[in-house]
């Protein structure tokens, strides 16, 4: 089975069922499959072949979904880009992935010439409408998306098979540059089946989706609902959380999924916990540890008929690795649960042997959902993929019942909201400025975000240090979620005898 094969199968079985709702728009499985088929033909006619990479830079919408499945049906691998990133990052990822085409819209690619500049593999871009002011590199084709609308959908599932790459999802790496997690059709289809096995979704289910599809959790919501013939209700306006709750009620969604910051905001600024939620059957949470007190509060306030699923995963595992069965949540607050069906999740010692109950070790995951590796990065792949599986970098222990509890992360990653941010990337950005001599970036506990990014700076000239100018520099280089919330100018960073910055000391100083 392939990822787009799941769409084609559902479209054949339930052509008139609504697959997507976005505001006033509803697209049936028949519509989505036809649209994807037209895009697939369009790409094939322009020379896109099996194994090519095609980037998609489109916010969650029916257009994204059609482009995603169209790219796959054409035999290519989809590189979904985060529209929150800056032009410089888009360009770096287009270059790194070697994408031959970019499917986007004018609203996400206002500065298209800057995005595509210096991408030697890129042959053409497709937009909904072109800006007459754009000056594109010579030789780069520019097409309009409505050229595809006139074509007949491509028949059949095409050449790609389970072992072909379906997606490269970029995620922050320990080196500072984003790494491409390569996932095959087989990986994504396997994880979709594994998730369906415990969430037990069916065609009557519909999820209110506030998570971006370029993110593995958002992608898994889309794929599970496509597979079971359910409906994905897109709402990109979580900035106004009360309105998302109106969408949830109006569209009679049976599920809601979010990361800890979504639930923190819902509990702080909406009537989420008091609403009757007549149609809601379950909520799921993943994307970082949610404070046990918040889990308790949510579980205590929502009616018992609404199942609360606490889960854990990684992009490197397609999405999902573990879950706490809802009926055991009250006795296992703080746990990430056990491996989902088809995933072996163990806690291991450095020598590879399994830890005893209560003993700390690293979480190691194995199963058909584990990535092929990082794109073009054999060294980094070798650091996480071993014969016994994916070494997650999370330190944990398991209790006597086999439930896993995370203690700490091995790698220097900050989990700000839904986003994994590399301290190194932010530090490198700060150090680009001559007025910064040293920089150290850490995540400090934050009620809404889980962790907030803060930076300690040793300025070259403390008297002349301009904090706002440095933040403006960050804003010009980094997505907004990577910009430090606070800068702390200091005379020197605390270090150990070998010169390593003592991050724990900095973290303790803000408590």
């Amino acid at each position: 089975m392939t990822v787009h094969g799941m769409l084609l199968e559902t479209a054949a079985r339930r052509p008139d069922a609504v697959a997507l709702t976005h505001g006033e728009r509803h697209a049936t499985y028949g519509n989505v499959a036809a649209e994807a088929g037209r895009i697939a033909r369009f790409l094939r006619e322009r020379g896109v072949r099996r194994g090519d990479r095609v980037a998609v830079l489109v916010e969650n919408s029916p257009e994204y979904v059609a482009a995603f499945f169209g790219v796959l049906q054409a035999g290519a691998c989809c590189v979904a880009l985060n529209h929150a990133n800056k032009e410089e990052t888009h360009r770096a990822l287009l270059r790194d992935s070697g994408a031959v085409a970019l499917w986007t819209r004018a609203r996400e690619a206002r500065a298209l010439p800057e995005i595509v500049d210096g991408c030697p593999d890129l042959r053409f871009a497709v937009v909904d409408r072109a800006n007459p002011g754009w000056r594109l590199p010579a030789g780069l084709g520019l097409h309009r998306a409505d050229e595809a609308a006139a074509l007949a959908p491509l028949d059949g599932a095409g050449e790609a098979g389970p072992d072909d790459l379906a997606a490269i999802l970029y995620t922050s790496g320990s080196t500072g540059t984003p790494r491409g997690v390569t996932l095959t059709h087989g990986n994504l289809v396997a994880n979709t089946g594994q998730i369906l096995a415990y969430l037990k979704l069916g065609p009557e289910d519909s999820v209110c989706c506030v998570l971006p599809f370029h993110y593995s959790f958002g992608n898994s919501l889309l794929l599970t609902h496509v597979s079971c013939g359910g409906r994905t209700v897109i709402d990109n306006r979580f900035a106004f959380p009360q309105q998302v709750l109106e969408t949830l009620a109006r569209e009679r969604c049976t599920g809601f999924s979010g990361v800890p910051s979504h639930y923190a905001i819902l509990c702080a600024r909406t009537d989420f916990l008091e609403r009757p939620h007549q149609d809601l059957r379950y909520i799921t949470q993943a994307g970082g540890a949610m404070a046990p007190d918040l889990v308790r509060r949510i579980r205590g306030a929502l009616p018992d008929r609404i199942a609360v699923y606490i889960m854990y995963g990684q992009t490197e595992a397609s999405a999902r690795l573990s879950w706490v069965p809802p009926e055991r949540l009250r006795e296992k607050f703080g746990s990430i649960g056990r491996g989902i069906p088809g995933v072996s999740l163990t806690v291991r010692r450095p020598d590879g042997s399994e830890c005893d109950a209560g003993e700390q070790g690293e979480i190691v995951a194995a199963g058909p959902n584990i990535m092929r590796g990082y794109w073009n990065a054999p060294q980094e792949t070798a650091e996480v993929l071993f014969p016994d599986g994916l070494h997650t970098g999370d330190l944990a222990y398991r209790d006597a019942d086999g439930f896993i509890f995370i203690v700490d992360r091995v790698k220097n990653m900050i989990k700000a909201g839904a986003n994994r941010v590399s301290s190194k990337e932010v530090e490198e950005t700060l150090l680009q400025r001559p007025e910064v001599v040293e920089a150290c970036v850490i995540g400090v506990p934050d009620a809404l975000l889980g962790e907030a990014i803060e930076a300690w700076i040793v300025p070259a000239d403390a008297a002349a240090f301009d904090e706002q100018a440095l933040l403006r520099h960050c804003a010009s280089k980094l997505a907004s979620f990577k910009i430090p919330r606070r800068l702390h100018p200091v005379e020197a960073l605390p270090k150990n005898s070998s010169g390593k910055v003592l991050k724990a000391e900095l973290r303790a100083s803000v408590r």
Partner: protein
Amino acid sequence: MELRQQIRGFVVENFLFGDGAPLKDDQMSLLDNGIMDSVGVMELVAFLEGDLGLGIDDQELVPENLDSIDNLVGFVTRKRG
């Protein structure tokens, strides 16, 4: 300080780090133009409640009240009225 200036000042200071150039006019959507994100909305609400002393109901967290300088000025004026 005049209310509009105060609100503009907060947005420029906190979301644009002192450079007001991207804020082309007072009608433009702060969200659609990438000036503010969902966490930014929470900071904005904290500013309205803290610095301006407003009591804001959850139901009032809508774009019509918060998504542009004009909407913000209108919202605060109505609340104070």
